[in-house]
C-alpha cells in the first residue's frame, strides 16, 4: 500500500500534520520508535518515571557521543552510555510532549528578525527567519483552540499581537503564594504575567479538565488535560500509528523520497511507501536520519547538498535558581497558603525581553516561576549534605529533612534566553559507534556563545530581586552553558537560499520534491521562550501547505 503521507516521529512536530491531513481524508501513517501509553497507563510513580527513566531508551542500547567544546576550540569526548549523559526526552506516541510542563509562550515579532533587529554578533551565525510573526500568528491561535492553552492575556511592553482578545480556556487555578509574587512585582514595577499553559482548565475537545495532580512536568497526564500530541491530536484523528518502528533510512531517487525503512521490535526490517514524507523525530535525531540516509545522489546525507544538515544546533540558554520560604518568617495563614499543594504557581516575567545596558541593545528573555517539583525522593536527596558540603546520615539528617520539608517550601525560576547558533554546535554521526539496531549513533557537538551567559546573568539577577522582595531566603541561581536536552532545535535550517539552508520557507527540503521536516530542526534561532508552542504552530502551518499541494 502506498500512503499519501508518511510521518517519522509522533511528537509535537509531526502530529499536527497527521491530524490535519487525516481529517481532510488523506491516508496517513506515523512511525514511532517508542510504545503507546494512554491516560489509563500513566501513574505518578516517581521510581519508574523519574528514577529509572521508564520513558527513555536505556543508554547501553541507544546513546549519543557528545563532544563538549571549550571557547578555545578544544573538546572533551563523552560516550553517552559510559557518562550517563542522556539526550532522550520521551520515546513514546506523542513524544516528549507527554512529559512537558506545558509552559507556553509565543515567540515575539522581534524573534523572527534577530539579525536585523540586533545586528551581527561575532562568532554567532544569527540570521532572520524566512517567515515573520504575522504568518505564524493564525497558527499560534489555532494551537490555543485545538491543543488547548489556558491563560489570561495581560498587557505588557512586549506582549505579542493577538488575533483574539484572550485565551479560549480560562487560566488554571493558582496557589495563594502567587499573590505575594504579584505584590512584589507591583512594588518593583515589574509586570506579573500569568503563564499560559497547554493544560485544559475545563473539559473540552473530548478531553477531561486538569485535576491538579501536583505532578505535571516529567509525568504523563492521566486526565488528558495536558496538550500532548497524543492526547490532543493523534487520539482525535484516524491517522495510523505504528509503534516500535525505528526508521533507520530514507531512500531517494530523482529528487524524490521513495521509501522509509524501519526496524520493528524484533529487528525485522519493513518499508513504507508514500507520496509525501515528513520527518519529525526531534531535532538531533532528524539530522541523524538524514546523514545516515546518504546515497549516490546525496553522498553527504539526504537533502544535504548545502552541507548544512546538522549545523547550527541550538538549545535554550539560561539556567535556573531558587529561594526558600520558611515558616519562621510567615504568619499562620501564609504558612497554610505556602503548603497548599496541587494548584499551580504559573507566573512569568518578560519585562526584559529586550534591554539596554547603556552600551548596546540586548535581546533578553523570559523568566518562569514555579514551585520546586513535588517529587519526594528528589527533594529529600537534596538534603544529603550539610552547609559545608559534608555528607550526612543518621538522626541528624532525619531532623534536617523533617524541618526542611515540613516547615519550608522552595520557589524556583527558570531563565530562557537565546542560545546563539555557532560553528561548533551541531550534529554528525559516528563512524564507529552504533546503537542496538546497528545504526551509527548521533554525535552532538556542543558549544555555547559567551553572550548567552551574559544575558542569562542579567535576567537571573532580576528574578533574584523578586525573590528578595517576597522575603525568600537561601536565594541562589546558576546560569550555565549546559544544554537542556528537552529544549533543542535547529540542524535543518529553513531559508530562501538553497546554498546555506536545508529547507525552504515551507519546511520542504530544497533538494527533494516530497520531503518536509516539521519538528524544531527548521528553526535558525529559537526565541527566548520554550519551543513547543512554536513547533506545534509551525507544524499546523506546514499541514496547510501540504493540504494545499495535495488538493491541486
Amino acid at each position, binding site marked *: 500500500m502506498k500512503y499519501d503521507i508518511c510521518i517519522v516521529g509522533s511528537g509535537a512536530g509531526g502530529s499536527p500534520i497527521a491530524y490535519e491531513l487525516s481529517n481532510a481524508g488523506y491516508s496517513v501513517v506515523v512511525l514511532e520508535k517508542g510504545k503507546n501509553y494512554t491516560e489509563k497507563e500513566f*501513574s505518578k510513580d516517581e521510581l519508574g518515571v523519574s528514577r*529509572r527513566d521508564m520513558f527513555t531508551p536505556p543508554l547501553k542500547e541507544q546513546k549519543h557521543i557528545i563532544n563538549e567544546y571549550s571557547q578555545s576550540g578544544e573538546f572533551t569526548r563523552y560516550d553517552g552510555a559510559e557518562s550517563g549523559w542522556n539526550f532522550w526526552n520521551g520515546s513514546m506516541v506523542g513524544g516528549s510532549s507527554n512529559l512537558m510542563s506545558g509552559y507556553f509562550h509565543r515567540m515575539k515579532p522581534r524573534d523572527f528578525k534577530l539579525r536585523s533587529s540586533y545586528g551581527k554578533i561575532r562568532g554567532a551565525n544569527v540570521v532572520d527567519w524566512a517567515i515573520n510573526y504575522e504568518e505564524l500568528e493564525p497558527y499560534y491561535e489555532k494551537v490555543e483552540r485545538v491543543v488547548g492553552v489556558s491563560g489570561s492575556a495581560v498587557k505588557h511592553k512586549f506582549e505579542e499581537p493577538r488575533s483574539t482578545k484572550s485565551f479560549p480556556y480560562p487560566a488554571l487555578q493558582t496557589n495563594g503564594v502567587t499573590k505575594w509574587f504579584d505584590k512584589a512585582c507591583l512594588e518593583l514595577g515589574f509586570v506579573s504575567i500569568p503563564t499560559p499553559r497547554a493544560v485544559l482548565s475545563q473539559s473540552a475537545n473530548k478531553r477531561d479538565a486538569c485535576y491538579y495532580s501536583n505532578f505535571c512536568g516529567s509525568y504523563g497526564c492521566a486526565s488528558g488535560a495536558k496538550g500532548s500530541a497524543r492526547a490532543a491530536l493523534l487520539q482525535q484523528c484516524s491517522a495510523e500509528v505504528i509503534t516500535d518502528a525505528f526508521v533507520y533510512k530514507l531512500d531517494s531517487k530523482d529528487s524524490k523520497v521513495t521509501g522509509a525503512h524501519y526496524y520493528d521490535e524484533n529487528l525485522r526490517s519493513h518499508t513504507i511507501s508514500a507520496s509525501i514524507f515528513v520527518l519529525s523525530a526531534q531535532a538531533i535525531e532528524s539530522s541523524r536520519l538524514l546523514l545516515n540516509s546518504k546515497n549516490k545522489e546525496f553522498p553527504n546525507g539526504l537533502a544535504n547538498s548545502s552541507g548544512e544538515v546538522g549545523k547550527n544546533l541550538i538549545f535554550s540558554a539560561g539556567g535556573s535558581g531558587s529561594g526558600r520560604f520558611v515558616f519562621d518568617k510567615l504568619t499562620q495563614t501564609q504558612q497554610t497558603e505556602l503548603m497548599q499543594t496541587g494548584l499551580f504557581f504559573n507566573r512569568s516575567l518578560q519585562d526584559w525581553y529586550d534591554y539596554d545596558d547603556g552600551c548596546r541593545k540586548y535581546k533578553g528573555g523570559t523568566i518562569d516561576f514555579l514551585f520546586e517539583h513535588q517529587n519526594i525522593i528528589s527533594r*529529600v*536527596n537534596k538534603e544529603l549534605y550539610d552547609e559545608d558540603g559534608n555528607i550526612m*546520615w543518621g538522626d541528624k*539528617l532525619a531532623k534536617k529533612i523533617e524541618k526542611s520539608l515540613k516547615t519550608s517550601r522552595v520557589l524556583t525560576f527558570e531563565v530562557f534566553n537565546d542560545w546563539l547558533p555557532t560553528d561548533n554546535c551541531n550534529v554528525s554521526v559516528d563512524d564507529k559507534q552504533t546503537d542496538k539496531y546497528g545504526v551509527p549513533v548521533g554525535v552532538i557537538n556542543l558549544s555555547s556563545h559567551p553572550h548567552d551567559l551574559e544575558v542569562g546573568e542579567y535576567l537571573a539577577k532580576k528574578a533574584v530581586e523578586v525573590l528578595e522582595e517576597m522575603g525568600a531566603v537561601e536565594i541562589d541561581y546558576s546560569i550555565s552553558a549546559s544544554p537542556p536536552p528537552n529544549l533543542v532545535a535547529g540542524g535543518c535550517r529553513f531559508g530562501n537560499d538553497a546554498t546555506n539552508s536545508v529547507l525552504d520557507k515551507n519546511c520542504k527540503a530544497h533538494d527533494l520534491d516530497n520531503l518536509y521536516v516539521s519538528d524544531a530542526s527548521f528553526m535558525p534561532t529559537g526565541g527566548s521562550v520554550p519551543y513547543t508552542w512554536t513547533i506545534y504552530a509551525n507544524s499546523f502551518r506546514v499541514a496547510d501547505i501540504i493540504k494545499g499541494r495535495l488538493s491541486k
Partner: protein
Amino acid sequence: MISLNKRRTFLKVGFFSSAIVFTNGCDILGVEKLSDTIKVVQNDLFPKAKELHINISKYMNIIFQHSRVDETDKEFIKNGIKWLNEEAVKMFEVPYTKLSKSKRQEVLEGIAKYRWGENWIDNMMRYIFEAMLGDPLYSGNNEEAGWKWLGFKGGNPRPKELYL
C-alpha cells in the same frame, strides 16, 4: 565443573545473598553475607527507616534485579560492603557487623573521608530514600509510613504494576 555450575546457579539465585570475601591484599580476613552487612549498615545510616518499619532489604532485592540499574552500580554497592569490612578490620580487627554501634559509626566516619566512601554512602542513602518514599507497591514504604512521616500524600493515580 560441578562447583562452577553450582556457583552459577548461586549467582542467579541472589546477588543480594552472595558472600563477600574481604582481604588485606594478601590474606583473607573474613567472609560475610552481603545482605547481613547491608541490613546493619542501612540501619546505622538511617535508623528512622527501621522505626517506621520500612522494608529496605526487600526493596534492595528489586534494585539488584532491576533492568535499569547498571551492573556497575550493583557492583559498586557490593564492593562498598567489601571495603567497609576491610576498613572495619583495619580499624578494629573484626568485620563491621561484629562491632558495637559506636564503633560502627566510627567506621562510617572513617570511610566518609575517602572519595569512594562518600560516594558509597551517598548511593546507599538514595536507595534507602527510594525504599522509604517510593510507592508502597515497591514493597519498602510500609503502609505509606515514609510518606506519613513527611506529611506527603503521593500523586494520583498510583502505579498498578512495578516498573522493573
